[in-house]
């Protein structure tokens, strides 16, 4: 009842939250368009209208969709591999001191070394078509590993004590006590890793130039000073990133809810 007027007052007399957001976006799009017109050089800056036109043009070609599908499937493969290995290694590190100490510098290095260095190094080992798979893997694994390990360590000792008194066997203990404690950590790790991995994967393609990928098109835009295409491909990458994250979050939430609603 009293929520609406309060909210309006909180926004300083501006219309509701969504309206304010759209206005802000419209404002910056206008600034962008005006700047592009003022500069008057298509190489330096193109306006949003032209970018959208170019994007629509690209979206009408089969090459655009083939490139998106290729990049997406390779990076997704690496992401899944990274998530699986992170999930598998974390319990091993929890159980074995040796495994943990051995893994610590590896995960630390994977997180600390710049992606560009890895890209060039990996290019010496694998063909460029498999580059983004490996890079996505390298990006995802340490994030998932660190978070899942943290989740395992944060498991309430009171719950473990309870499981001990009731004589709950190891399988049930892992399935119910640990998994329910770790799932929120895993969810956070996956949605964080998804965005980072996607961007790193495309960056790897720009350097490795595998055929028919988003990265290759970005590189071509640079070589031919084709700024409209550069912007159009960038918009496509952002849209895919936001869309994928929303999709993944929904899927994970639904899985979590189903897990929790079991009678």
């Amino acid at each position, binding site marked *: 009842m009293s929520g609406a007027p309060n909210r309006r007052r909180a926004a300083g007399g501006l219309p509701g939250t969504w309206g304010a957001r759209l206005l802000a976006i419209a404002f910056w799009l206008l600034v962008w368009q005006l700047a592009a017109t003022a500069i008057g050089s298509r190489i330096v800056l193109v306006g949003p209208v032209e970018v959208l036109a170019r994007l629509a043009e690209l979206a009408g070609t089969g090459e655009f969709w083939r490139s998106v599908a290729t990049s997406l499937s390779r990076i997704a493969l690496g992401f899944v591999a990274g998530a699986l290995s992170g999930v598998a290694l974390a319990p091993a590190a929890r159980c074995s001191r040796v495994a943990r100490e051995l893994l610590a510098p590896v995960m630390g290095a994977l997180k600390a070394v710049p992606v560009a260095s890895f890209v060039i190094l990996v290019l010496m080992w694998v063909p460029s078509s498999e580059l983004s798979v490996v890079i996505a893997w390298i990006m995802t694994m340490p994030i998932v590993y660190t978070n899942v390990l943290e989740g395992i360590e944060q498991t309430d000792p*009171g719950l473990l004590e309870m499981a001990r*008194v*009731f004589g*709950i066997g190891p399988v049930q203990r892992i399935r119910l*006590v640990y998994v329910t404690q770790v799932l929120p950590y895993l969810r956070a790790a996956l949605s964080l890793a998804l965005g980072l991995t996607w961007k790193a994967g495309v960056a790897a393609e720009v350097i490795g130039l595998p055929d028919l990928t988003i990265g290759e098109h970005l590189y071509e835009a640079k070589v031919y000073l084709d700024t409209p295409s550069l912007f159009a491909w960038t918009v496509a990458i952002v849209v895919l990133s936001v869309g994928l994250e929303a999709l993944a979050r929904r899927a994970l939430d639904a899985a979590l809810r189903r897990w*929790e609603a079991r009678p």
Partner: protein
Amino acid sequence: MSEGLALAGVSKAYGALRVLEDVTARFAPGRTHVLMGPSGAGKTTVLRLLAGLEDPDAGRVERPVGARLAMTFQEDRLLDGLTATANIRLPLEPLRGARLERELARERAALEAVGLPVDRRPVRELSGGQRRRVAILRCALADADVMLFDEPLKGMDERTARRVNDFLRPLLAGRTVLWVTHDEREVALLDRPLLWTVREGGVRGPHM
């Protein structure tokens, strides 16, 4: 090994704090034992020793060989992400099919009997008092030989406490039950309990 639960010459200290001193107490099997005493007297320590969660500094803790244990703690110790029924079923072996359905029916009847909602919400959405009752049901339905209750009805209104105990009484019959409380009214809710007092480092009883 004796048949029942027993403490034989047990001492226990936490750092400089001596909680139990040379305590000997035998808890007859198949009966309900009520442990009363002031806060901090060591009632919870007695339960934790009997559950095997603490080792005595001196003396021996005796437990029937192969006895299955169930317990409520001072905290609820529920799995927040699971439903009430999944929490109650935790001590049991995994069930499926018709056996799961039978067990679910038993759990739902138990939830209704103690005034809890029967739905698919995870227990993190339940109130503190409701969570407490889920923890009591997990202990009572665990099919255990020995049940240890650590102030289970603490903070519960009298009507709910009566309702919970009306449900518990037949489940406790014939099992070895240790019931810690400092509320004398709870004694009346239990079936022919044996009374013990825990104070000043000793456990005395049973008082007839």
